[in-house]
């Protein structure tokens, strides 16, 4: 009984016995690999079109072991981290202003939507031209792609804050700043994290696209090299796998932070 009491927000209802999510994911992965293998066998595609899962696995291990992937992965991770951090920070501030200042929303929202409507793929060469082949262009592309979903989620989250709770805070003479920190942010957090989850996966896309438009390092560049000059298709697949794992890891990180901050309500 005390265990139930101690857990904040735990429901006292007995949860039905279910498969742990790790086991479920492992089963799905096994099925995916099996189907992949089956396609290779049935179709008879050569390894430079569709390598077998074990060939990709072996190349993944060797490319990590011999340091082929690591420097590219760390560069991409760096771009994602900075771009996501900058983009999400701006988006949180703009999202709040959009929610609280109707004038800001009227003035800015058409441009936000227009900016979002232009594919980042089409914008990347221009940004590479403006900011050069260095890291800045990648940061900007990541930040841009992260901005929209996070800003919109933040706006929606703050708009949805219960007006009755705001009246309560006012009746308790909360300052503007106290209202933001003790009421509006905690109330908007679940929605904001919805935007951050989308944003962090898009940030990986942004980094890869940015690297395609010109880079000396990064997983996007490695994809091009593996397919082009090296013609190492297993390495191409191993790079794609790395990109996917990077996305999963970052998404998982956001979820962990969300669980810690939002908890069970």
């Amino acid at each position, binding site marked *: 009984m005390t265990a139930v*009491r*101690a857990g*904040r*927000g735990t429901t*006292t209802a007995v949860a039905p016995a279910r498969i742990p999510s790790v086991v479920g994911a492992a089963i799905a992965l096994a099925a995916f690999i099996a189907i992949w293998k089956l396609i290779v066998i049935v179709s008879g595609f050569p390894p430079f079109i569709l390598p077998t899962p074990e060939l990709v696995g072996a190349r993944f291990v060797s490319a990590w072991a011999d340091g082929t992937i690591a420097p590219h992965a760390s560069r991409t991770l760096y771009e994602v981290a900075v771009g996501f951090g900058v983009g999400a920070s701006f988006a949180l501030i703009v999202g709040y202003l959009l929610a609280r200042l109707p004038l800001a929303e009227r003035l800015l929202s058409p441009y936000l939507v227009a900016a979002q409507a232009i594919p980042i793929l089409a914008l990347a060469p221009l940004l590479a031209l403006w900011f050069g082949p260095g890291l800045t262009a990648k940061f900007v592309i990541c930040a841009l792609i992260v901005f929209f979903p996070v800003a919109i989620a933040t706006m929606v989250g703050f708009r949805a804050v*219960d007006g*009755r*709770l705001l*009246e*309560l*805070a*006012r*009746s*308790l*003479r*909360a*300052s503007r700043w*106290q209202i933001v920190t*003790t*009421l509006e942010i*905690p*109330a908007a957090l679940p929605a904001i994290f919805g935007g951050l989850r989308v944003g962090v996966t898009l940030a990986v896309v942004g980094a890869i696209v940015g690297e395609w438009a010109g880079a000396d390092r990064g997983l996007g560049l490695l994809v091009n090299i593996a397919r082009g000059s090296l013609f190492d298709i297993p390495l191409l697949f191993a790079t794609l796998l790395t990109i996917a794992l990077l996305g999963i890891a970052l998404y998982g990180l956001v979820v962990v932070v969300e669980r810690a901050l*939002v*908890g069970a*309500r």
Partner: protein
Amino acid sequence: MTAPPVGRIVLRDISVSFPAGRHDRLVALGGVDLVVDPGQIVALIGPNGSGKSTLLRVVAGLLAPDAGTAAIDGRPIDGPDPRVGLVFQEPRLLPWRTTAENVAYPLELAGVARAEREARVATLLGTVGIEAAASQVPSQLSGGMRQRAALARTLALEPQVLLLDEPFSALDELTRERLNLELLAITARTPTTVLLVTHSVQEAIFLADRVVVLSARPGRVVADLPVSLARPRSFGDLDAAIVSSTAHAIRAALGEAAA
């Protein structure tokens, strides 16, 4: 030597209107005069739209009247006042905070140190009888417990004036009666001026020293009836002849008010 009684509410000719449509304004209160003496319990009763809650918001400093003056102990009300505590119709607990954290919220906002906060919260939870729910979140509480937590939160700042906006109306009859009894016990222990909005004639009589009847929109005071029942009160008292005559007078005034 006791401190002089405090918490005298003086409302003079209070008018409040709200924008309605393009040009019109809806007059919610059309000149309300009301004086509540320190320690008195006054029930506001009236038909829907008579501006009872609006009047409470004026006293709470959440709403500035278009005309008229509102003061507590001679000091005009020009915003939410630390001497005034308001209990809303809904509990309005922060869903991400535990019961104890919710009760501590006003103290946190007022900058009370943690140790003192915790001591006062423990006392307050005891006062309203929800110590066992201290570490539970609102979604785990029953309606009655939530409203107890809301009451404890309002009492945290030790208000001299307690405003209650139909605080127990969403609860079942039994819970409501019990909370009314406890409310009387709490206000008897710490003399507090109480202004209470209710829809129930019986509740008004049971709780109040005076029942003030407001008219339909625009709200005005149409009757101000004393309840001459001795304190402490019990539900048995509600059978007394004086109660039925008071109830009759309230209903007569309400009938007039609705017309």
